[in-house]
């Protein structure tokens, strides 16, 4: 790896962690102009920065506002690098459907989960907020999803997570689909009770678990 490329990748990662949007944009342009590999710029630079931000969140150094601004910076960079991606290994890419369950319109957690899944190499279909259970199942079927991620912030809408799982069963899709649940009121025991595959209190951990579970399922 050239010295300049190595330095730029490091700086991309740093500028995301440091919430510096302008610098991330500037560095991403410079990276592309030099003709460096976009995939490495994303995974080892931008996504690495977001991962580090996630760790800082888990350690209580960063909070939601910091994470959101980090992700803004990361997306600015992604927009610049993405058009230069060579999709050689896109066939083997894991696919995920994510959304906030019906009745809830808070989507910070879902958005973070989505970003973290992307950094783990997932192709993510985001259904947005207030999503009826049947929509999750429809989309999962359509794209042959490996993961369905359900998020909520309110105790009042948790029940809809179980409805999605039951629908997946009815459609005979439960065995090949990993269901991840998350959000403020969700706990491991709740995830166990409704029969979800995975849960983690934080989006970054959750995405890592999702990848592990899919990899295990496929082998």
């Amino acid at each position: 790896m050239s010295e300049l490329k190595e330095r730029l990748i490091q700086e991309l990662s740093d500028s995301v962690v440091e919430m510096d949007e302008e610098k991330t944009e500037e560095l991403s342009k410079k990276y592309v102009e030099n003709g460096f590999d976009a995939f490495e710029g994303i995974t080892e630079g931008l996504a690495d920065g977001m991962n580090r931000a996630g760790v800082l969140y888990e350690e209580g150094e960063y909070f939601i506002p910091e994470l959101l601004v980090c992700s803004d910076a990361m997306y600015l960079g992604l927009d610049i690098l993405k058009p230069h991606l060579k999709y050689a290994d896109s066939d083997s890419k894991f696919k995920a459907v994510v959304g906030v369950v019906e009745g809830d319109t808070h989507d910070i957690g879902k958005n973070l989960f989505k970003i973290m899944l992307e950094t783990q190499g997932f192709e993510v279909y985001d259904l947005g907020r207030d999503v009826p259970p049947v929509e999750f199942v429809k989309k999962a079927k359509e794209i042959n999803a490996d993961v369905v991620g359900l998020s909520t912030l309110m105790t009042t809408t948790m029940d809809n997570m179980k409805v999605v799982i039951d629908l997946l069963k009815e459609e005979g899709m439960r065995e090949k689909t990993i269901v991840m649940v998350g959000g403020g009121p969700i706990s491991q025991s709740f995830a166990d009770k409704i029969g979800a595959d995975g849960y983690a209190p934080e989006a970054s951990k959750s995405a890592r678990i999702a990848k592990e579970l899919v990899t295990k399922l496929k082998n």
Partner: protein
Amino acid sequence: MDYPDKMTPVERATAKAKGEPIDRIACNPNIGNGMARIAGYKISQFNTDPEALADAIIKTYRRFGSDGARVFTDLFLISEAMGAKINMPYDNTADLEEPAINDMSEFDKLKVVNPYTDGRIPVHLRALEIVRDEIASEVGVTASVVGPFTNAFFLIGVEKMTKMLLKDPESVHKLCEISLQSCIALTDAVLEKGTGVTVSEPLSSCTVVSPKHFREFSAPYLKRLIDHIKARTGKLVIHICGKTDPIWEDLVDMGVDVLSIDDIADLENCAETVGDRMVIAGNVDPSGVLYAGSREDVRKATLKCIKQGIKAKKGYMIMSGCSLPVEVPVENIDAMMDAAREAGWPITGEKLDYLLSIDKYKD
């Protein structure tokens, strides 16, 4: 009443304050819109019908004998009255659909609420009167006021406000100031009815913002609201969701009398570190235990909370960590109240250890 309490919640609280014997430790399961299930209403009725809202609160209190009756349906009472659009499902809890303004250029659209005319506030105030007249002689009646910082998020949108904390602090202060004025207007209308106020300030949680941001943006306004309330009633109950340990001392300094903490927070640590200066309430897990657990799970979790909570020298009240899910099993709420009765009074460590060592329910 078909439960064996010998005192009403008011008698219990009064005796406790005087250091006299009581029949059992105080317990408030914090039933939110689940009251609709208990009293046979649809949740949307609470948006327009004060009689229905009051009746559900009264019936719920009578069903369980809980130590507290609160007029509360959702967090959006003030933001709606200030222009936010609220999604109100037929039989589920209301939620923010669109904030009151899209960006700060529209700031002038925001007006301090008139609690007697705006949004659903008149419905809540009327319900408060009915509840007060019917049961305030038996149980402490409060209305819920959302904290100024949390309410400010709903004025401009949660994600936008979150980023503004880092990018546009001046505007955050402007939003919090007008938000506070509305909180005070509602508080005054509530206090005029002669009842208490409980403050919910969930977005001040350290699960969301850093203690630094809490001190910079939330605390100054919350302190002014607390001063305002305490100057009139002398007592302040606050609930903050999520992680709160880094700001417990701040809340003590602000004069909070009763702090209700989420199940994520460490009750024992809270009772030991700040329980000599605040009454601590909490923190039976609302989803994992009360919603998803068995009656025995609820009983044990409640007894464990008592064991941790009674280390608070100023006092402890059993509460769920947050408002209960609507579909929480009624028998689990009974199991929580009954655990308080089982613990009785006085409570000793040996007694709790014994109760914890046996199973009461066979399901």
